[in-house]
């Protein structure tokens, strides 16, 4: 959809809503229903990014992966920060979604669910993430494979998902949608048999994982195929050394993650290479979208993939996340060195096995490769960093896990807010789904919600929750005090909860207290507008 089409559709929606025949309006009113309203321009603008993704895929999909078609048939579910949900192209939108009249994306209908919309402001630039889910069912009851995307405002610098120093750009969203559509293409075609890796690095793993990433990057940069093959032997040996800490299942899970996320990330890298070669004409411009430059800096974006690989290599927390970069570059190397590699992936072989099979290492070579990994790479530096990281992380875990006393939990799930995007994580350590703050938590502000800094070792957990333990609770007469307007359902409006560890303000919250736990559920992040008075027609 170009700018004029978008404007035309927006105008059409407004016209349709304003000019509904009187008889229809009366009928709707009599039935107690309301005609679905047009979507806000910021939301319609977001949907047009999907149009650009389709346009890019029309030019690149078959070149990215032979046989990749059908991407326009996959529905999208967009979830905005104000809880507005928009479905594009769903064959059977479930209640309470309603078709938005006169609006289409890629020729497919759009439906909206406004049933839980809050007063949170939705304004550009929106960024986000998501993945494929089954959402709703077709008329025959079959679950519908749908791309689910959550879009929100940029977050605290240093928080999870914050893009330091990178200006926001729509190109990243186009590539994100392409990535998720590739996941949908994988279904039934590229299906590793193992689940997701759930593994924290120990010092050996962290060391060899970093060296392995460096070897992969050197292979990618190698000037000729022979040099690339030598570096890939080093990658294979480093991976084997790294995997001595893992059991068979974990090894297979890591390779499976490389396939799942690596091929989808590679799809975006390949798309950029095709764009750079002149294989794509943007359908929208900066005039339509100030954050879009039509991939004018494709070169720079391609370069950023290799930079990300090096950063990923040096990062010891959450090894699963390396699969995006490590998997992507295994694909890129396989494309260069192993003809027919994509068919092998479709037959169930992970890229690391494909590369190791195509570039065998002789008996004598293995020891030589390990010697080079220790001498030609910054092995000692990597080892020192890994030991320091794992030592500090494990100490943080033990300091927090050993705290006994009353537990305080702040629950942001009712407002669907990932907690790790809200505060800088300086000095924090990730362990599984925990983020450990051994020196205390900096607190956050989210619209009208404020959590004060917390000065004791504490953690976040399970995406939505902050947790702290008061080790002196047995000396206190009260677990907390609360000020605010108590509601009939037991919640509080305009509430301030004061505990010995922190103060929390929220427009609406509920406190669930048990013998040794105080759970504070944040129910709203902005004040709700007072209910409209007077009668509706």
């Amino acid at each position, binding site marked *: 959809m170009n700018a004029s089409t978008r404007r035309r559709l927006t105008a059409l929606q407004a016209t349709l809503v304003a000019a509904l025949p009187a008889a229809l309006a009366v009928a709707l009113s009599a039935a107690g229903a309301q005609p679905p309203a047009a979507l806000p321009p910021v939301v319609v603008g977001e949907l047009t990014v999907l149009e650009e993704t389709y346009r890019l895929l029309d030019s690149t999909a078959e070149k990215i992966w032979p046989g990749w078609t059908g991407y326009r048939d996959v529905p999208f579910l967009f979830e905005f920060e104000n809880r507005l949900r928009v479905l594009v192209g769903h064959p059977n939108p479930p209640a309470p979604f309603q078709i938005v009249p006169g609006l289409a994306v890629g020729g497919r209908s759009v439906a909206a669910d406004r049933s839980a919309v809050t007063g949170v402001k939705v304004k550009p630039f929106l960024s986000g993430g998501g993945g494929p889910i*089954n*959402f709703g*069912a077709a008329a025959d009851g079959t679950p519908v494979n749908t791309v689910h995307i959550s879009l929100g405002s940029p977050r605290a610098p240093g928080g999870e998902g914050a893009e330091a120093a990178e200006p926001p750009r729509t190109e990243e969203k186009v590539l994100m949608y392409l990535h998720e559509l590739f996941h949908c293409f994988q279904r039934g075609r590229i299906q590793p048999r193992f689940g997701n890796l759930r593994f*924290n690095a120990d010092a050996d793993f962290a060391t060899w994982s970093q060296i392995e990433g460096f070897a992969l990057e050197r292979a990618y940069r190698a000037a000729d195929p022979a040099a690339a093959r030598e570096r890939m032997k080093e990658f294979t040996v480093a991976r084997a050394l790294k995997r001595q800490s893992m059991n068979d299942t974990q090894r297979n899970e890591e390779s499976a993650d490389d396939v799942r996320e690596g091929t989808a990330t590679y799809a975006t890298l390949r798309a950029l290479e095709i764009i750079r070669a002149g294989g794509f004409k943007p359908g929208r411009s900066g005039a339509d979208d100030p954050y879009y430059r039509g991939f004018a800096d494709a070169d720079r974006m391609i370069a950023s993939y290799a930079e990300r690989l090096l950063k990923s290599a040096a990062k010891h927390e959450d090894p699963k996340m390396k699969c995006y970069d490590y998997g992507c570059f295994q694909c890129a190397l396989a494309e260069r060195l192993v003809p027919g590699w994509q068919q092998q992936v479709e037959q169930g072989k992970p890229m690391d096995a494909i590369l190791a099979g195509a570039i065998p290492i002789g008996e004598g070579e293995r020891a030589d490769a390990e010697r080079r990994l220790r001498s030609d790479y910054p092995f000692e530096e990597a080892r020192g960093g890994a030991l320091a990281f794992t030592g500090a992380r494990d100490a943080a875990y033990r300091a927090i*896990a050993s705290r006994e006393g009353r537990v305080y939990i702040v629950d942001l799930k009712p407002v669907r807010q990932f907690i790790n995007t809200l505060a800088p994580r300086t000095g924090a350590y990730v362990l*599984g*789904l925990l983020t450990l703050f051994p020196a205390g938590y900096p607190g956050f502000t989210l619209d009208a919600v404020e959590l004060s800094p917390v000065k004791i070792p504490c953690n976040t957990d399970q995406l939505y929750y902050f947790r702290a333990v008061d080790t002196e609770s047995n000396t206190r007469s009260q677990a907390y005090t609360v000020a605010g307007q108590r509601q009939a359902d037991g919640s509080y409006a305009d509430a301030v909860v004061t505990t010995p560890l922190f103060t929390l303000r929220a427009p609406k919250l509920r406190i669930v207290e048990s013998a040794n736990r105080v759970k504070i559920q944040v129910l709203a992040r902005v004040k709700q507008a007072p209910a409209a008075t007077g009668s509706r027609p």
Partner: protein
Amino acid sequence: MTLELLLVYLAGTFTWPASPPPDLHAVIRSEFVYMASTRTTTSEWWASDGKSTIRQGDRLSITREDLGVVWRASLKEGTYSERTIAPAGQAAAPPDAAGANVDMRTAGYDWEPSYEWSVKASGQSSTIAGRACREFVATGDADYAEARVSFWACDPLPGVVRNPNDAVVASLASRSVRRMILETLTKQGGAWVLAADEQQEPAIAPTMVMRVRVETLEAGAAPAGTFDLPPSFKKLGR
């Protein structure tokens, strides 16, 4: 005369030779409601002394406590995998909450809700699969999750050694829910659970609803081979 009455009659009539207790058969229907779609499955379950089998579509699981193994088979593929099971009554070691002996390579991943339960009889009664049942309602609160469960505690079939409880609660989401139901049944004099609804607000995912109900319940002799793998099946793995 129903099969059940016949069994009661036979049990009362003959004292010698001691006939083995009848096997138990149930057809269990379950629903999983998630993200605006409902997945329905029907399972056929048989249990005998020290053995049970459950078939769901082309998947078959046979538990042989007498042999210390569980086989999981694909009827479509003609293959199976085997794992050994711990001797009965041997409980797993409790988790190390203080973190002194935790395997740091896997720490922080496996949070499982441990609900604090409030369980009450609702006063409702009903008949499920021919058995008289009383409803219980429970609410549970955990650090990062909440659950509301209703379940029906029912009169057992007389003369049957096995009960269907494990097979019924297996469809529910969390261990804490299953444990709470089984403990309540014990307090109710060994009642059987023949239906349950669990609504869970999990830590990360959107609301999930699990419903399970026994459609058919009968005592009798399992068909020959019910607790054995078909001989042509091939074992997976090394």
